[in-house]
């Protein structure tokens, strides 16, 4: 790896430093006492130095997958939705599964940034930037699917309340319409939140820039930030209020996504548990994605002292909590199916666990309920190989959760004469792979050109940043 040439002094780590924060008396959030300058150096290095060879490999693979996405979408527009496996009775296939999967992943960024900020969980500072970026890219992937899912993107404006030649207006009593507003506003607010947090760090990169182009590019987006306390005061207030707004927003978005299902009458969808169950699942999958990405980035870009095992320990606890909540929701669904006495509801759930798609149901239960139970043990919460594999399995499980909800509920509803089976086509699978290409391409560019750790926030949690009256 190309990082071997780095002078270890730039890390400024003193191995003699203890692990206890001298001011707070708790474990240090940043290992090795790098000092203010050390934090700047560590975070600016991936942006200013030649990236490691592995970065080019990952980018090349991601771009290839992005190309597949382009081809799959182009063929869809040319040929129509017939290239997909969607058909009656399963009219909602992979596109909706992928949409809900990506929106769900997009929830951890705001959770880590906003909810943990309001709860004064200061360990979030090392990971919030990357989690917010991940949120934005995941929402981008999600938004592709409603845009293409009818195969006629030139009609996408029908989703918006715009004056048009047909004199038609959207139907605001439909949860699908709420979804348009919830997801697009979530994307916009996440972007604002992310950009506001980036301004001071862009100024850092501007002030360190060695070339004119870098100075201009970072300077343009740093909008003349000069760290004045009169500016910081408004900045911090705006940040706090954005966090306060983003918190109910993030809860509302996946609730609204779940309304798409819950307000219909299909057995297996028509349940009141959906909003909290969807939100817990979304946070679960998003945190897992953050863990997957950070496990790799902290080593590849030498940020192990900023993103420490303490951070993974906390994120693993979050996964344990939300995974167990999701497991509880699965159990409640079965209980209510039995307790309600509704034969259609009962059948829907027995069919889920024992019917033709039982394999997907048990993949879901294994990955989402059994795997996170590993995190009861501190050794495993801080053992990187287990974290990496478990976080990927969790996202496999969460993808299958959406598959189970969409496909098993639709393929056998009320009348046996209307039953059928669903199978994805090659194009369905290529589109799913392609969406990962978009996500990872964006993330590769992000780690190369923007500071992946919030420099100013991490400096603020160093013990020397505290001022005593």
């Amino acid at each position, binding site marked *: 790896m190309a990082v071997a040439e780095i002078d270890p002094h730039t890390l400024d780590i003193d191995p003699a430093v203890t692990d206890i924060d001298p001011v707070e008396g708790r474990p240090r959030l940043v290992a090795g006492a790098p000092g*203010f*300058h050390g934090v700047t150096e560590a975070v600016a290095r991936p942006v200013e130095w030649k990236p490691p060879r592995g970065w080019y490999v990952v980018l090349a693979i991601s771009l290839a997958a992005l190309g597949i996405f382009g081809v799959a979408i182009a063929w869809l527009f040319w040929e129509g939705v017939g290239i997909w496996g969607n058909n009656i009775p399963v009219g909602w296939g992979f596109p909706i599964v992928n949409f809900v999967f990506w929106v769900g992943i997009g929830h951890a960024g705001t959770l880590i940034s906003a909810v943990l900020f309001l709860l004064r969980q200061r360990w979030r500072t090392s990971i919030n930037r990357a989690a917010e970026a991940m949120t934005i890219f995941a929402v981008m992937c999600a938004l592709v699917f409603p845009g293409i899912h009818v195969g006629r993107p030139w009609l996408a404006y029908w989703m918006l309340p715009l004056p048009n030649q047909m004199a038609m*207006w959207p139907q605001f009593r439909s949860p699908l319409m709420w979804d348009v507003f919830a997801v697009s506003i979530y994307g916009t*607010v996440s972007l604002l939140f992310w950009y506001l947090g980036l301004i001071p760090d862009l100024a850092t990169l501007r*002030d360190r820039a060695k070339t004119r182009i870098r100075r201009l590019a970072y300077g343009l987006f740093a909008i003349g930030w000069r760290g004045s*306390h009169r500016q910081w*005061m*408004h900045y911090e207030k*705006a940040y706090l*209020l954005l966090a306060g707004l983003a918190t109910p927003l993030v809860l509302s978005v996946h609730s609204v996504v779940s309304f798409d299902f819950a307000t219909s009458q299909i057995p297996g969808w028509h349940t009141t548990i959906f909003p909290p169950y969807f939100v817990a699942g979304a946070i679960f999958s998003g945190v897992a994605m953050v863990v997957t990405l950070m496990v790799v980035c902290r080593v590849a870009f030498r940020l192990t002292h900023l993103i420490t095992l303490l951070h993974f320990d906390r994120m693993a606890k979050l996964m344990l909590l939300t995974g167990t909540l999701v497991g509880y929701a699965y159990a409640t669904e079965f209980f209510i199916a039995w307790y309600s006495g509704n034969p259609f509801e009962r059948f829907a759930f027995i069919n889920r666990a024992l019917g033709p798609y039982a394999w997907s149901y048990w993949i879901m239960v294994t990955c989402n309920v059994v795997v996170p139970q590993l995190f009861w043990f501190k050794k495993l919460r801080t053992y990187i190989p287990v974290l990496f594999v478990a976080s990927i399995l969790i996202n496999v499980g969460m993808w299958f959760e959406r598959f189970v909800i969409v496909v098993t509920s639709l393929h056998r509803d009320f009348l046996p004469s209307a039953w059928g089976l669903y199978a994805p086509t090659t194009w369905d699978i290529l589109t799913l792979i392609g969406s990962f290409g978009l996500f990872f391409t964006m993330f590769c560019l992000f780690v190369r050109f923007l500071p992946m750790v919030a420099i100013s926030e991490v400096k603020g949690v160093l013990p020397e940043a505290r001022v005593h009256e």
Partner: protein
Amino acid sequence: MSGERKLWGLLAEFTSPARLAEACRGVRDAGYSRWDAHTPFPVHGLEAAMGLRRSPVGWFVLGLGLAGAAGGMLLQWWTATTAYPLVISGKPLFSWPAFVPVMFECGVLGGAAGAVLGFLLLARLPQPFHPLFSSERFERFSDDRFFISIEAADPRFDRAATAELLDRLGAQHVEAVETGGAAAAAA
């Protein structure tokens, strides 16, 4: 650069947030009004040390948030009753409970826009050029140094006396920041 060069103010450098806060109290007590502290991260407790009032960003959030929510409800009311009246499952045309989710989302959008716009307006950003950017040392404000700047436009400003005050307050380095006539007017 064209235009005559003028003194914009003094820039004092400090090495730690504690020393900066100490010095801020000194500058505040000396009665200066057109001055500022520049730090790589928000140093907590500096508002009091500088004698600043609370930020009014919240009012922008409240105002635009309510406007967003009202606008969202208005849009749905007008769409459902005037632009495209459609009876859905026997409900009244203005079946407002169904419009609450979109109203809420629009309110959040308005509030978020209020937070960002309020911040930009109150912090007077974007401001691509500022006389402080001509100082080479000032580049480290975003890294690991802490600065106090006092403008020459301050009524109490006196080049020698102010420099001496900053020195006495523990500044590691004090320098004069100059600017061209035109740039000063723009800033």
